[in-house]
């Protein structure tokens, strides 16, 4: 259950899909549909690379930690539980800004910079960098979930843990494929945005309970296996 939730949290995060929707919209406004499609794939590749790098790096660090630092590791699990509780509260009160929009907690100066980058991007490498960069701002919420699941995976067989990491990496970019699919089915940014606004309470609810459950599960893990 912890592993599935850790996989679902990046799926429900709203920043990267928001950046991607805006990026696709501006690409459609500046170029042909074909070129916008190509650019969107580059963006997804960038996001995928970033996720893969983070998952594998944290997996490697988890191995180093659990095999080189003598136990008990219960304090590590309790710290992680504390972080999850803080994240549950943050999701409830700070993740979305007030108002009928999907504006997130990220400072306006940063989002304005990203929007300026979205407007200016021209080459494929620009799109790849934008995709990778946008994942960076969500790490504050996704990183603890990745840390706890890779910590659990260090006890699994190599094949099953590699398979799980591969599925998680794919899952984290699935929302981008959904947004891309919506654009390709002739839905526009306004329609996509209205749906994102409508599902705001649902996303908040899912993330809040996921983080709370992760906190409880992490305390249990610390007490029994730490």
């Amino acid at each position, binding site marked *: 259950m912890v592993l599935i939730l850790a996989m679902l949290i990046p799926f429900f995060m709203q*920043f990267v899909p*928001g*950046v991607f*929707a*805006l990026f696709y*919209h*501006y690409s*459609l*406004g*500046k170029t042909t549909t074909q070129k916008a499609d190509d650019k969107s794939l580059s963006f997804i590749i960038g996001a995928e690379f970033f996720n893969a790098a983070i998952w594998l790096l944290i997996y490697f660090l988890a191995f180093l930690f659990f095999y080189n630092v003598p136990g008990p590791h219960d304090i590590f699990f309790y710290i992680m539980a504390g972080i999850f509780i803080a994240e549950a509260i943050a999701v409830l009160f700070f993740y979305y*800004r007030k*108002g009928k*929009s*999907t*504006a*997130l907690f*990220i400072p306006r100066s940063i*989002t*304005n910079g*990203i*929007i300026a980058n979205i407007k200016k991007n021209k080459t494929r490498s620009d799109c790849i960098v934008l995709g990778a960069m946008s994942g960076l701002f969500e790490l504050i919420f996704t990183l603890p979930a990745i840390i706890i699941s890779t910590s659990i995976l260090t006890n699994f067989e190599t094949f099953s843990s590699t398979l799980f990491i591969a599925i998680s990496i794919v899952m984290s970019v699935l929302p981008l494929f959904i947004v891309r699919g919506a654009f390709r089915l*002739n839905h*526009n*940014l*306004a*329609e996509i*945005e*209205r749906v994102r606004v409508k599902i705001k309470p649902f996303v908040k609810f899912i993330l809040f309970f996921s983080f709370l459950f992760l906190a409880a599960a992490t305390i249990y893990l610390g007490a029994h296996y730490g």
Partner: protein
Amino acid sequence: MDEKTEKSLRRELKLHAKALGIPDGSAEIFIDKTLESVRKSLKGKSIITSADLTRLIVKSLEKYNKDFAYVYQNRDTII
């Protein structure tokens, strides 16, 4: 509204219209009428904020295309 502002507004509105799949001819008419109504509303005013300008544009665009107005209104609050 000076010429430079109008030119950049027209460029931005054209970009959004194309992205929303509004045919060029219709987009041109919507934009012309919108800018005309904004110009009329601004007559005699010496100070105007960008929020006022956005509100006037959105109000006018809503008459022609709701999606166009919605995207223009929320363009900075999507992320």
